[in-house]
Protein backbone atom coordinates (compact mmCIF):
# COMPACT_ATOMS: atom_id res chain seq x y z
CA UNK A 1 0.00 0.00 0.00
CA UNK A 2 2.74 2.47 0.77
CA UNK A 3 4.93 3.77 -1.97
CA UNK A 4 8.22 2.71 -0.46
CA UNK A 5 10.59 0.97 -2.84
CA UNK A 6 8.50 1.88 -5.85
CA UNK A 7 9.80 4.42 -8.29
CA UNK A 8 7.23 7.08 -8.91
CA UNK A 9 7.39 8.94 -12.18
CA UNK A 10 5.64 12.28 -12.22
CA UNK A 11 5.41 14.27 -15.42
CA UNK A 12 4.79 17.97 -15.03
CA UNK A 13 3.60 20.03 -17.99
CA UNK A 14 4.21 23.66 -17.09
CA UNK A 15 5.58 26.54 -19.15
CA UNK A 16 6.39 28.96 -16.36
CA UNK A 17 9.95 28.60 -15.13
CA UNK A 18 9.18 29.98 -11.66
CA UNK A 19 6.25 27.64 -11.21
CA UNK A 20 8.39 24.71 -12.27
CA UNK A 21 11.02 25.55 -9.68
CA UNK A 22 8.33 26.04 -7.07
CA UNK A 23 6.81 22.65 -7.83
CA UNK A 24 10.16 20.90 -7.95
CA UNK A 25 11.13 22.28 -4.56
CA UNK A 26 7.75 21.48 -3.09
CA UNK A 27 7.97 17.90 -4.36
CA UNK A 28 11.51 17.58 -3.04
CA UNK A 29 10.44 18.99 0.30
CA UNK A 30 7.95 16.14 0.49
CA UNK A 31 10.50 13.62 -0.74
CA UNK A 32 8.30 12.92 -3.72
CA UNK A 33 10.72 13.94 -6.43
CA UNK A 34 11.57 10.33 -6.98
CA UNK A 35 11.56 10.55 -10.75
CA UNK A 36 10.42 13.94 -11.90
CA UNK A 37 10.16 15.04 -15.53
CA UNK A 38 9.20 18.43 -16.94
CA UNK A 39 7.83 19.47 -20.30
CA UNK A 40 6.98 23.04 -21.13
CA UNK A 41 4.06 22.83 -23.53
CA UNK A 42 1.42 20.48 -24.89
CA UNK A 43 3.44 19.65 -27.98
CA UNK A 44 6.39 18.51 -25.90
CA UNK A 45 4.05 16.64 -23.57
CA UNK A 46 2.73 14.58 -26.47
CA UNK A 47 6.27 14.01 -27.79
CA UNK A 48 7.24 12.69 -24.38
CA UNK A 49 4.26 10.36 -24.05
CA UNK A 50 4.45 9.05 -27.60
CA UNK A 51 8.25 8.86 -27.70
CA UNK A 52 8.58 11.26 -30.58
CA UNK A 53 11.18 13.87 -31.46
CA UNK A 54 13.57 14.53 -28.58
CA UNK A 55 12.03 11.67 -26.63
CA UNK A 56 12.49 8.84 -29.13
CA UNK A 57 14.43 6.72 -26.63
CA UNK A 58 11.82 5.17 -24.34
CA UNK A 59 14.20 4.89 -21.35
CA UNK A 60 14.60 8.64 -21.47
CA UNK A 61 10.87 9.17 -21.15
CA UNK A 62 9.48 6.60 -18.70
CA UNK A 63 5.71 6.25 -18.58
CA UNK A 64 4.45 8.56 -15.83
CA UNK A 65 2.29 7.36 -12.95
CA UNK A 66 0.67 10.78 -12.81
CA UNK A 67 0.57 13.88 -14.98
CA UNK A 68 0.31 17.36 -13.49
CA UNK A 69 -1.01 19.63 -16.18
CA UNK A 70 -1.11 23.37 -16.56
CA UNK A 71 -3.87 24.58 -18.86
CA UNK A 72 -2.38 27.74 -20.32
CA UNK A 73 0.72 26.89 -22.29
CA UNK A 74 2.14 28.04 -25.64
CA UNK A 75 2.08 26.01 -28.88
CA UNK A 76 -0.40 23.36 -27.79
CA UNK A 77 -2.25 24.22 -24.61
CA UNK A 78 -3.26 21.85 -21.83
CA UNK A 79 -6.84 21.44 -22.99
CA UNK A 80 -5.81 20.16 -26.41
CA UNK A 81 -3.16 17.83 -24.99
CA UNK A 82 -5.72 16.53 -22.52
CA UNK A 83 -8.11 15.74 -25.34
CA UNK A 84 -5.40 13.82 -27.21
CA UNK A 85 -4.29 11.85 -24.17
CA UNK A 86 -7.83 10.81 -23.31
CA UNK A 87 -8.42 9.70 -26.90
CA UNK A 88 -5.38 7.40 -26.86
CA UNK A 89 -6.29 3.92 -25.59
CA UNK A 90 -2.80 3.37 -24.25
CA UNK A 91 -2.47 6.69 -22.43
CA UNK A 92 -5.97 7.36 -21.16
CA UNK A 93 -5.42 5.33 -17.97
CA UNK A 94 -2.80 7.74 -16.70
CA UNK A 95 -4.49 9.99 -14.16
CA UNK A 96 -4.17 13.69 -14.87
CA UNK A 97 -4.44 16.42 -12.29
CA UNK A 98 -4.97 19.92 -13.62
CA UNK A 99 -2.96 22.44 -11.63
CA UNK A 100 -3.69 25.90 -12.89
CA UNK A 101 -4.24 29.51 -11.98
CA UNK A 102 -7.46 29.49 -13.91
CA UNK A 103 -10.49 29.20 -11.70
CA UNK A 104 -12.86 29.80 -14.55
CA UNK A 105 -15.97 27.68 -14.22
CA UNK A 106 -15.72 26.97 -17.90
CA UNK A 107 -12.26 25.45 -17.54
CA UNK A 108 -13.31 23.32 -14.61
CA UNK A 109 -16.28 22.10 -16.56
CA UNK A 110 -14.34 21.47 -19.76
CA UNK A 111 -11.50 19.57 -18.16
CA UNK A 112 -13.73 17.37 -16.01
CA UNK A 113 -15.70 16.80 -19.15
CA UNK A 114 -12.54 15.58 -20.87
CA UNK A 115 -11.83 13.11 -18.10
CA UNK A 116 -9.38 14.86 -15.83
CA UNK A 117 -9.06 13.28 -12.38
CA UNK A 118 -9.07 16.45 -10.36
CA UNK A 119 -8.72 20.17 -10.75
CA UNK A 120 -6.60 22.11 -8.29
CA UNK A 121 -6.05 25.84 -8.18
CA UNK A 122 -2.38 26.69 -8.24
CA UNK A 123 -1.29 28.57 -5.13
CA UNK A 124 1.08 31.50 -5.24
CA UNK A 125 2.76 31.06 -1.87
CA UNK A 126 5.48 28.43 -1.48
CA UNK A 127 4.06 27.08 1.80
CA UNK A 128 0.71 26.44 0.15
CA UNK A 129 2.42 24.73 -2.75
CA UNK A 130 4.27 22.44 -0.33
CA UNK A 131 0.96 21.69 1.40
CA UNK A 132 -0.73 20.90 -1.89
CA UNK A 133 2.10 18.72 -3.17
CA UNK A 134 2.03 16.87 0.12
CA UNK A 135 -1.68 16.15 -0.18
CA UNK A 136 -1.27 15.23 -3.79
CA UNK A 137 1.53 12.83 -3.00
CA UNK A 138 -0.25 11.19 -0.08
CA UNK A 139 -3.43 10.80 -2.04
CA UNK A 140 -2.03 9.51 -5.35
CA UNK A 141 0.92 7.50 -4.14
CA UNK A 142 0.03 6.26 -0.69
CA UNK A 143 -3.64 5.50 -0.79
CA UNK A 144 -4.64 5.33 -4.44
CA UNK A 145 -3.69 2.13 -6.28
CA UNK A 146 -2.66 3.02 -9.81
CA UNK A 147 -2.71 0.58 -12.74
CA UNK A 148 0.48 -1.43 -13.28
CA UNK A 149 2.91 0.53 -15.34
CA UNK A 150 3.47 -2.07 -18.02
CA UNK A 151 1.39 -1.04 -20.98
CA UNK A 152 0.00 -4.34 -22.16
Amino acid sequence: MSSKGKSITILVAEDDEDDRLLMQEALEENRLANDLHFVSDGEELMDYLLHRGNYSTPTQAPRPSLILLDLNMPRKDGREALKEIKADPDLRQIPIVVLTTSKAEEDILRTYDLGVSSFIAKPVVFESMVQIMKMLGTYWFEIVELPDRASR
Partner: protein
Amino acid sequence: MASDICRVLLVDDDEDDYIMTRDFLSEAEQLTFKLDWVDSYPEGLAAIAQNQHDVYLLDFRLGKEDGLELLQAALKLGCTKPIILLTGVGDHDIDQKAMATGASDYLVKGNTLSATLLERSILHAMERKRGEIRQAQLMAELATANQELKDFAYIVSHDLKAPLRGIASLAVWLLKDYGDRLDENGKEMLQLIDGRVRRMGDLIDGVLQYSRVGRVRDEKTNVDLNQVVAAVKDAIAPPVGLEILVDSELPIVFVEKTRIQQVFQNLISNAVKYMGKPEGQIRIGHTTDNGFWQFFVSDTGIGIEERHFEKVFQIFQTLAPRDQSESTGVGLAIVKKIVELYGGRVWVTSQVGHSSTFFFTLPQTLEDRDV
Protein backbone atom coordinates in the same frame (compact mmCIF):
# COMPACT_ATOMS: atom_id res chain seq x y z
CA MET B 1 -7.75 -51.12 -31.17
CA ALA B 2 -4.38 -52.88 -30.99
CA SER B 3 -5.90 -56.32 -31.50
CA ASP B 4 -8.55 -55.11 -33.93
CA ILE B 5 -8.41 -54.68 -37.63
CA CYS B 6 -6.78 -51.48 -38.85
CA ARG B 7 -8.90 -49.85 -41.53
CA VAL B 8 -6.96 -48.06 -44.25
CA LEU B 9 -8.32 -45.83 -47.00
CA LEU B 10 -6.28 -45.36 -50.15
CA VAL B 11 -7.10 -42.39 -52.38
CA ASP B 12 -5.31 -43.05 -55.66
CA ASP B 13 -6.33 -42.78 -59.29
CA ASP B 14 -4.07 -45.63 -60.42
CA GLU B 15 -5.43 -49.18 -59.97
CA ASP B 16 -1.93 -50.65 -60.12
CA ASP B 17 -1.06 -48.69 -57.00
CA TYR B 18 -4.13 -50.11 -55.27
CA ILE B 19 -3.14 -53.66 -56.13
CA MET B 20 0.40 -53.10 -54.95
CA THR B 21 -0.75 -51.52 -51.67
CA ARG B 22 -3.23 -54.35 -51.08
CA ASP B 23 -0.50 -56.94 -51.62
CA PHE B 24 1.91 -55.16 -49.31
CA LEU B 25 -0.66 -54.86 -46.55
CA SER B 26 -1.61 -58.53 -46.81
CA GLU B 27 2.00 -59.35 -45.95
CA ALA B 28 1.90 -57.24 -42.80
CA GLU B 29 3.12 -58.96 -39.67
CA GLN B 30 2.03 -56.87 -36.70
CA LEU B 31 -1.45 -55.78 -37.69
CA THR B 32 -4.34 -56.99 -39.80
CA PHE B 33 -5.29 -54.38 -42.36
CA LYS B 34 -8.52 -53.87 -44.22
CA LEU B 35 -7.99 -51.69 -47.28
CA ASP B 36 -10.65 -49.55 -48.98
CA TRP B 37 -9.94 -47.71 -52.18
CA VAL B 38 -11.43 -44.67 -53.90
CA ASP B 39 -9.90 -43.14 -56.99
CA SER B 40 -10.79 -39.43 -56.91
CA TYR B 41 -10.47 -36.31 -54.80
CA PRO B 42 -14.23 -35.80 -54.14
CA GLU B 43 -14.78 -39.43 -53.20
CA GLY B 44 -11.70 -39.30 -51.00
CA LEU B 45 -12.88 -36.20 -49.17
CA ALA B 46 -16.37 -37.66 -48.74
CA ALA B 47 -14.91 -40.84 -47.27
CA ILE B 48 -12.62 -38.91 -44.92
CA ALA B 49 -15.61 -36.90 -43.73
CA GLN B 50 -17.28 -40.20 -42.75
CA ASN B 51 -14.39 -40.89 -40.37
CA GLN B 52 -14.60 -44.67 -40.86
CA HIS B 53 -10.87 -45.34 -41.16
CA ASP B 54 -7.85 -45.45 -38.90
CA VAL B 55 -5.35 -44.12 -41.41
CA TYR B 56 -5.41 -42.43 -44.82
CA LEU B 57 -2.99 -42.93 -47.71
CA LEU B 58 -3.24 -40.13 -50.27
CA ASP B 59 -1.53 -40.26 -53.62
CA PHE B 60 -0.06 -36.95 -54.69
CA ARG B 61 -1.41 -37.21 -58.22
CA LEU B 62 -5.21 -37.10 -58.23
CA GLY B 63 -6.26 -35.83 -61.66
CA LYS B 64 -7.20 -32.12 -61.45
CA GLU B 65 -6.38 -31.88 -57.76
CA ASP B 66 -3.48 -33.23 -55.81
CA GLY B 67 -2.86 -35.02 -52.53
CA LEU B 68 -1.64 -31.87 -50.78
CA GLU B 69 -4.93 -30.14 -51.44
CA LEU B 70 -6.82 -33.16 -50.18
CA LEU B 71 -4.61 -33.18 -47.08
CA GLN B 72 -5.44 -29.54 -46.39
CA ALA B 73 -9.15 -30.12 -46.97
CA ALA B 74 -9.12 -33.14 -44.66
CA LEU B 75 -7.42 -31.21 -41.88
CA LYS B 76 -9.87 -28.39 -42.33
CA LEU B 77 -12.68 -30.89 -41.81
CA GLY B 78 -11.08 -31.66 -38.47
CA CYS B 79 -9.63 -35.05 -39.41
CA THR B 80 -7.88 -36.48 -36.34
CA LYS B 81 -6.56 -39.65 -38.00
CA PRO B 82 -3.05 -39.88 -39.42
CA ILE B 83 -2.59 -39.06 -43.08
CA ILE B 84 0.33 -40.37 -45.15
CA LEU B 85 1.14 -38.83 -48.51
CA LEU B 86 2.41 -41.05 -51.35
CA THR B 87 4.79 -39.16 -53.58
CA GLY B 88 7.03 -39.85 -56.53
CA VAL B 89 10.79 -40.29 -56.58
CA GLY B 90 12.62 -36.99 -56.25
CA ASP B 91 9.59 -34.93 -55.16
CA HIS B 92 11.46 -33.54 -52.17
CA ASP B 93 9.64 -30.23 -52.22
CA ILE B 94 6.31 -31.98 -52.01
CA ASP B 95 7.55 -34.22 -49.20
CA GLN B 96 8.59 -31.15 -47.20
CA LYS B 97 5.35 -29.37 -47.90
CA ALA B 98 3.32 -32.38 -46.85
CA MET B 99 5.05 -32.58 -43.49
CA ALA B 100 4.75 -28.83 -42.95
CA THR B 101 1.04 -28.95 -43.77
CA GLY B 102 0.37 -31.62 -41.19
CA ALA B 103 0.87 -35.02 -42.79
CA SER B 104 1.98 -37.69 -40.35
CA ASP B 105 4.47 -39.13 -42.86
CA TYR B 106 5.27 -39.43 -46.56
CA LEU B 107 6.25 -42.48 -48.62
CA VAL B 108 8.12 -42.44 -51.89
CA LYS B 109 6.56 -44.83 -54.37
CA GLY B 110 8.81 -46.99 -56.54
CA ASN B 111 11.29 -49.77 -56.12
CA THR B 112 12.32 -48.82 -52.63
CA LEU B 113 8.79 -49.12 -51.23
CA SER B 114 8.24 -52.44 -49.51
CA ALA B 115 5.65 -54.18 -47.34
CA THR B 116 7.80 -53.65 -44.24
CA LEU B 117 8.30 -49.98 -44.98
CA LEU B 118 4.60 -49.36 -45.55
CA GLU B 119 3.58 -51.18 -42.39
CA ARG B 120 6.17 -49.40 -40.30
CA SER B 121 5.15 -46.02 -41.68
CA ILE B 122 1.50 -46.67 -40.81
CA LEU B 123 2.35 -47.85 -37.30
CA HIS B 124 4.56 -44.85 -36.62
CA ALA B 125 2.04 -42.43 -38.04
CA MET B 126 -0.69 -43.80 -35.79
CA GLU B 127 1.58 -43.67 -32.76
CA ARG B 128 2.62 -40.08 -33.49
CA LYS B 129 -0.98 -39.00 -34.00
CA ARG B 130 -2.01 -40.50 -30.66
CA GLY B 131 0.82 -38.53 -29.03
CA GLU B 132 -0.30 -35.30 -30.69
CA ILE B 133 -3.87 -35.78 -29.55
CA ARG B 134 -2.75 -36.54 -26.00
CA GLN B 135 -0.63 -33.41 -25.98
CA ALA B 136 -3.46 -31.26 -27.32
CA GLN B 137 -5.72 -32.58 -24.56
CA LEU B 138 -3.12 -31.80 -21.92
CA MET B 139 -2.69 -28.27 -23.25
CA ALA B 140 -6.43 -27.72 -23.20
CA GLU B 141 -6.64 -29.01 -19.63
CA LEU B 142 -3.78 -26.77 -18.62
CA ALA B 143 -5.47 -23.73 -20.16
CA THR B 144 -8.66 -24.54 -18.26
CA ALA B 145 -6.75 -24.98 -15.03
CA ASN B 146 -5.00 -21.63 -15.53
CA GLN B 147 -8.29 -19.89 -16.20
CA GLU B 148 -9.81 -21.49 -13.12
CA LEU B 149 -6.89 -20.30 -11.03
CA LYS B 150 -7.37 -16.76 -12.32
CA ASP B 151 -11.07 -16.83 -11.55
CA PHE B 152 -10.34 -18.34 -8.17
CA ALA B 153 -7.86 -15.63 -7.25
CA TYR B 154 -10.37 -13.01 -8.27
CA ILE B 155 -13.12 -14.57 -6.16
CA VAL B 156 -10.75 -14.85 -3.22
CA SER B 157 -9.85 -11.20 -3.45
CA HIS B 158 -13.44 -10.04 -3.64
CA ASP B 159 -15.62 -12.42 -1.79
CA LEU B 160 -13.51 -13.69 1.09
CA LYS B 161 -12.16 -10.31 2.06
CA ALA B 162 -15.48 -8.50 2.26
CA PRO B 163 -16.98 -10.47 5.17
CA LEU B 164 -13.63 -10.50 6.91
CA ARG B 165 -13.48 -6.72 6.84
CA GLY B 166 -16.95 -6.64 8.32
CA ILE B 167 -15.86 -8.84 11.23
CA ALA B 168 -12.78 -6.69 11.80
CA SER B 169 -14.81 -3.48 11.92
CA LEU B 170 -17.43 -4.93 14.27
CA ALA B 171 -14.76 -6.17 16.69
CA VAL B 172 -13.18 -2.70 16.80
CA TRP B 173 -16.53 -0.97 17.27
CA LEU B 174 -17.60 -3.37 20.02
CA LEU B 175 -14.42 -2.53 21.87
CA LYS B 176 -14.81 1.20 21.29
CA ASP B 177 -18.53 1.49 22.04
CA TYR B 178 -19.05 -1.20 24.68
CA GLY B 179 -15.52 -1.60 26.05
CA ASP B 180 -16.49 -0.09 29.40
CA ARG B 181 -19.13 -2.76 29.92
CA LEU B 182 -16.77 -5.68 29.26
CA ASP B 183 -14.40 -7.21 31.76
CA GLU B 184 -10.77 -7.95 30.89
CA ASN B 185 -11.71 -11.41 29.66
CA GLY B 186 -14.23 -10.02 27.19
CA LYS B 187 -11.81 -7.40 25.94
CA GLU B 188 -9.15 -10.01 25.43
CA MET B 189 -11.53 -12.10 23.36
CA LEU B 190 -12.23 -9.15 21.10
CA GLN B 191 -8.51 -8.61 20.69
CA LEU B 192 -8.08 -12.27 19.80
CA ILE B 193 -10.75 -11.89 17.13
CA ASP B 194 -8.86 -8.92 15.79
CA GLY B 195 -5.59 -10.88 15.65
CA ARG B 196 -7.15 -13.84 13.84
CA VAL B 197 -8.86 -11.55 11.36
CA ARG B 198 -5.54 -9.91 10.52
CA ARG B 199 -3.91 -13.28 10.10
CA MET B 200 -6.68 -14.46 7.80
CA GLY B 201 -6.30 -11.26 5.80
CA ASP B 202 -2.55 -11.85 5.46
CA LEU B 203 -3.19 -15.41 4.32
CA ILE B 204 -5.62 -14.26 1.64
CA ASP B 205 -3.11 -11.67 0.45
CA GLY B 206 -0.48 -14.40 0.39
CA VAL B 207 -2.59 -16.67 -1.81
CA LEU B 208 -3.20 -13.77 -4.15
CA GLN B 209 0.46 -12.81 -4.36
CA TYR B 210 1.44 -16.40 -4.95
CA SER B 211 -1.12 -16.91 -7.69
CA ARG B 212 -0.18 -13.60 -9.28
CA VAL B 213 3.37 -14.82 -9.94
CA GLY B 214 2.23 -17.16 -12.67
CA ARG B 215 -0.52 -15.15 -14.24
CA VAL B 216 0.60 -11.55 -14.33
CA ARG B 217 3.31 -10.87 -16.86
CA ASP B 218 5.52 -7.86 -17.22
CA GLU B 219 7.87 -6.84 -19.93
CA LYS B 220 11.37 -8.28 -19.71
CA THR B 221 14.20 -5.79 -19.71
CA ASN B 222 17.89 -5.76 -18.93
CA VAL B 223 17.94 -5.40 -15.18
CA ASP B 224 21.03 -4.36 -13.25
CA LEU B 225 20.93 -6.50 -10.13
CA ASN B 226 23.24 -4.11 -8.26
CA GLN B 227 20.51 -1.49 -8.49
CA VAL B 228 17.82 -4.00 -7.55
CA VAL B 229 19.68 -5.08 -4.42
CA ALA B 230 20.38 -1.45 -3.48
CA ALA B 231 16.68 -0.59 -3.84
CA VAL B 232 15.67 -3.62 -1.78
CA LYS B 233 18.14 -2.66 0.95
CA ASP B 234 16.60 0.80 1.04
CA ALA B 235 13.07 -0.51 1.19
CA ILE B 236 13.77 -3.04 3.94
CA ALA B 237 15.61 -0.50 6.12
CA PRO B 238 17.32 -3.08 8.35
CA PRO B 239 17.91 -2.36 12.05
CA VAL B 240 21.15 -0.57 12.91
CA GLY B 241 23.17 -3.58 14.07
CA LEU B 242 22.47 -5.46 10.89
CA GLU B 243 24.95 -5.24 8.07
CA ILE B 244 24.02 -6.06 4.49
CA LEU B 245 27.05 -6.60 2.23
CA VAL B 246 27.24 -7.28 -1.46
CA ASP B 247 30.27 -9.48 -2.17
CA SER B 248 30.64 -9.15 -5.88
CA GLU B 249 29.59 -6.94 -8.75
CA LEU B 250 26.26 -8.51 -9.71
CA PRO B 251 25.37 -9.15 -13.36
CA ILE B 252 22.73 -7.59 -15.59
CA VAL B 253 19.98 -10.09 -16.36
CA PHE B 254 17.14 -10.09 -18.88
CA VAL B 255 14.07 -10.59 -16.68
CA GLU B 256 10.92 -8.93 -15.43
CA LYS B 257 12.18 -6.36 -12.95
CA THR B 258 9.36 -6.64 -10.43
CA ARG B 259 9.85 -10.39 -10.20
CA ILE B 260 13.59 -10.43 -9.63
CA GLN B 261 13.10 -7.64 -7.13
CA GLN B 262 10.59 -9.82 -5.32
CA VAL B 263 13.10 -12.68 -5.18
CA PHE B 264 15.77 -10.52 -3.52
CA GLN B 265 13.25 -8.70 -1.36
CA ASN B 266 11.82 -11.93 0.02
CA LEU B 267 15.20 -13.58 0.59
CA ILE B 268 16.73 -10.55 2.28
CA SER B 269 13.72 -9.73 4.44
CA ASN B 270 13.56 -13.40 5.39
CA ALA B 271 17.19 -13.18 6.51
CA VAL B 272 16.41 -10.04 8.52
CA LYS B 273 13.34 -11.63 10.10
CA TYR B 274 15.14 -14.76 11.27
CA MET B 275 18.32 -13.11 12.50
CA GLY B 276 17.16 -13.72 16.06
CA LYS B 277 19.54 -11.16 17.56
CA PRO B 278 20.12 -7.43 17.24
CA GLU B 279 23.45 -7.78 15.43
CA GLY B 280 24.33 -9.80 12.41
CA GLN B 281 25.45 -9.88 8.86
CA ILE B 282 23.76 -10.64 5.55
CA ARG B 283 25.91 -11.29 2.50
CA ILE B 284 24.80 -11.31 -1.09
CA GLY B 285 26.90 -12.50 -4.02
CA HIS B 286 27.11 -14.70 -7.05
CA THR B 287 29.25 -17.13 -9.04
CA THR B 288 29.00 -18.44 -12.57
CA ASP B 289 28.62 -22.13 -13.21
CA ASN B 290 28.02 -23.99 -16.45
CA GLY B 291 25.79 -21.49 -18.20
CA PHE B 292 24.04 -20.57 -14.96
CA TRP B 293 24.42 -17.69 -12.57
CA GLN B 294 24.36 -18.89 -9.01
CA PHE B 295 23.31 -16.31 -6.44
CA PHE B 296 23.37 -16.57 -2.69
CA VAL B 297 21.94 -14.69 0.26
CA SER B 298 23.57 -15.80 3.50
CA ASP B 299 22.89 -14.72 7.04
CA THR B 300 24.25 -15.24 10.53
CA GLY B 301 20.80 -15.94 11.91
CA ILE B 302 19.06 -18.74 13.79
CA GLY B 303 19.48 -21.34 11.05
CA ILE B 304 17.19 -24.12 9.85
CA GLU B 305 17.26 -27.83 10.67
CA GLU B 306 18.09 -30.01 7.71
CA ARG B 307 14.76 -31.85 7.86
CA HIS B 308 13.04 -28.52 7.08
CA PHE B 309 15.17 -27.64 4.04
CA GLU B 310 12.39 -28.57 1.60
CA LYS B 311 9.51 -27.48 3.77
CA VAL B 312 10.52 -23.82 4.00
CA PHE B 313 9.77 -23.39 0.30
CA GLN B 314 6.23 -24.74 0.55
CA ILE B 315 3.37 -22.27 0.72
CA PHE B 316 1.97 -21.56 4.22
CA GLN B 317 4.79 -23.45 5.95
CA THR B 318 6.47 -21.49 8.66
CA LEU B 319 8.63 -22.96 11.36
CA ALA B 320 7.44 -20.63 14.11
CA PRO B 321 4.21 -21.26 16.06
CA ARG B 322 1.23 -19.69 14.33
CA ASP B 323 0.46 -17.29 17.13
CA GLN B 324 3.95 -15.89 17.49
CA SER B 325 4.75 -15.49 13.86
CA GLU B 326 3.96 -12.59 11.65
CA SER B 327 5.02 -14.67 8.73
CA THR B 328 2.47 -16.34 6.51
CA GLY B 329 4.93 -18.64 4.82
CA VAL B 330 4.44 -17.24 1.36
CA GLY B 331 7.68 -15.34 0.71
CA LEU B 332 9.97 -18.29 0.04
CA ALA B 333 7.25 -20.13 -1.89
CA ILE B 334 7.07 -17.13 -4.20
CA VAL B 335 10.87 -17.12 -4.58
CA LYS B 336 10.75 -20.76 -5.61
CA LYS B 337 7.93 -20.20 -8.06
CA ILE B 338 9.64 -17.27 -9.76
CA VAL B 339 13.06 -18.93 -9.96
CA GLU B 340 11.58 -22.12 -11.40
CA LEU B 341 9.57 -20.13 -13.89
CA TYR B 342 12.86 -18.87 -15.29
CA GLY B 343 14.30 -22.38 -15.36
CA GLY B 344 16.46 -22.01 -12.24
CA ARG B 345 16.70 -23.86 -8.95
CA VAL B 346 16.54 -22.78 -5.33
CA TRP B 347 17.84 -24.47 -2.18
CA VAL B 348 19.18 -23.79 1.28
CA THR B 349 22.07 -24.94 3.43
CA SER B 350 22.33 -24.13 7.11
CA GLN B 351 24.03 -24.65 10.42
CA VAL B 352 21.48 -24.47 13.22
CA GLY B 353 22.19 -21.54 15.53
CA HIS B 354 24.84 -20.09 13.22
CA SER B 355 23.85 -19.36 9.67
CA SER B 356 21.73 -20.09 6.64
CA THR B 357 22.56 -19.63 2.99
CA PHE B 358 19.89 -19.52 0.33
CA PHE B 359 21.05 -20.26 -3.21
CA PHE B 360 19.28 -19.82 -6.49
CA THR B 361 20.33 -20.18 -10.10
CA LEU B 362 19.25 -18.48 -13.30
CA PRO B 363 20.20 -19.63 -16.78
CA GLN B 364 22.46 -17.05 -18.44
CA THR B 365 20.29 -17.20 -21.51
CA LEU B 366 16.83 -16.94 -20.11
CA GLU B 367 14.13 -18.82 -21.91
CA ASP B 368 10.55 -18.48 -20.92
CA ARG B 369 9.13 -21.54 -19.22
CA ASP B 370 5.64 -20.17 -19.12
CA VAL B 371 2.72 -21.68 -20.95
